């Protein structure tokens, strides 16, 4: 039986290698979430014994969608920072922070008015990780964005609507991604921003 010409085999291997060389980085890139900013993996150490993937923590991106009324630039920045912090505190207390597994979220609503906290406690199944927390070992934030609409009078911000999207991965018995999105309503009271209302949806993908 005639054997194939050695030159032809070499050509096939070269072509296939080229295809692989082009595709593998693309596929590896495709494995990362395409549209959503995610934790960027740190380049592993050259030392194989120390190879370990870690993630940069995802920070909250807060932007101002629109200001109704006049508000100086410096105050806009202050509102963006302050409201961002209030929303962050709720996320940390209700979903991201603390040790897992746990089913108790006794102080889940920092930054809420007393009356709003009372309402929120009745919606704890949705506004915290309470119902699933006992089957979770760890929570990792993947996406945290806030968009603000601000109402200002006399050069001061009076109210804010914070439209937000929070996505986090869970490990443990419940592995998957949870998305919490919606709006928080805030007023400036006694020198601080307080959440007096919410309109929130939550869903998980496993």
């Amino acid at each position, binding site marked *: 039986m005639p054997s194939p010409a050695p030159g032809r085999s070499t050509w096939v291997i070269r072509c296939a290698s080229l295809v692989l060389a082009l595709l593998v980085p693309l596929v590896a890139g495709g494995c990362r979430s395409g549209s959503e900013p995610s934790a960027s993996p740190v380049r592993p150490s050259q030392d194989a014994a120390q190879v370990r993937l870690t993630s940069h923590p995802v920070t909250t991106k807060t932007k101002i969608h629109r200001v109704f009324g006049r508000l100086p630039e410096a105050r806009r920045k202050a509102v963006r920072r302050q409201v961002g912090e209030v929303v962050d505190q709720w996320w940390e207390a209700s979903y991201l922070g603390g040790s897992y597994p746990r089913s108790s979220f006794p102080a889940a609503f920092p930054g809420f008015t007393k*009356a*709003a906290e009372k309402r929120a406690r009745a919606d704890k199944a949705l506004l915290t990780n309470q119902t699933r927390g006992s089957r979770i070992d760890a929570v990792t934030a993947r996406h945290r964005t806030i968009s603000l609409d601000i109402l200002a009078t006399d050069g001061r911000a*009076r109210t804010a609507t914070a439209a937000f999207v929070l996505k986090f991965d869970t490990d443990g018995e419940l592995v998957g991604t949870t998305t919490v999105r919606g709006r928080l*309503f805030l007023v400036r009271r006694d020198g601080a921003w307080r959440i007096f209302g919410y*309109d929130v949806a939550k869903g998980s993908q496993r």
Partner: protein
Amino acid sequence: MTPPSVRRLRRAARAIGLAAVLAVTALVVPQSAVQSTEVSLVKIRHAQGVAVGPKDVVWILAVGSDARPGESMTRARGDALQMVGINTRTGSATAIGVPRDSWVAIPGHGREKINSALYFGGPRGMAGAMRNLVGIEPDYVMVTRFPFFEDMIDDIGGITVTNPRRFSDPNLKKEGFAKGRIRLRGYDAMAFSRIRKGLVGGDFDRSANQQRTLRGIHASIRAQADEPGFIERGVMTVMQHTDTNASPAELFQLAQAVAQVDPSKISTCVVQGRVGYVGAASVVFPDVAQARRLGRDARPDAALERC
């Protein structure tokens, strides 16, 4: 016989080719299709809540002033009078309408038509007259005049109301309003709320029409509340067009509370009465017992089971 080196080359080529195919497949097949057996979508749940102050129920007295151009709208007659309650815990809301010609006690001014309470005592005087009749002290009083009311309706894009019967008015709406669900822009909403002459029930039917307008306003706000900036824009409009004791932050809270009212939990009643005369003036002698009962029933939860 194929030499071993060639067979190794072929195996290597096949392996690389297979890897390439797999790589291409992974790239082009949607992730959901690849993971179809592993993905389960948990039902998306939804929750909403608003708290306005420490109480569950907040009361707003809405007044339509008949002030003419150049007149102060808080020192004119109050032609449209609706006591509106919102329960932020249950999502219910109620409106108790009072005919403007109701003959009532006005604090410090004896007995007069209730619409003059605004002229004599301003918003506070009107709140006192309504409290005497219905037994509810409003937390907020909001007064607007008809042209401003028209602007506000236009700003929210108009409203839809359900009109139980055709009626018209030679001055305000010659061609009249058709029976059924009708779309109203600013002027028509004003005329719909203001016309009395063409209505069989006169002042009582007019008050009921004002409540239909309130339902239409609520539906329009609720439908657009989640559009970024809609509520903020609305609050700015209200601040420009009303006289109120509510701060901008309180108006914002009230607007969010309105947006979260469940349409199926809205109840409305008009205080009934007997038409008569005081001197030459035509007045309504309101059914005070009914007014008090409505106030008593609605005060704790902003809900009315019967009129």
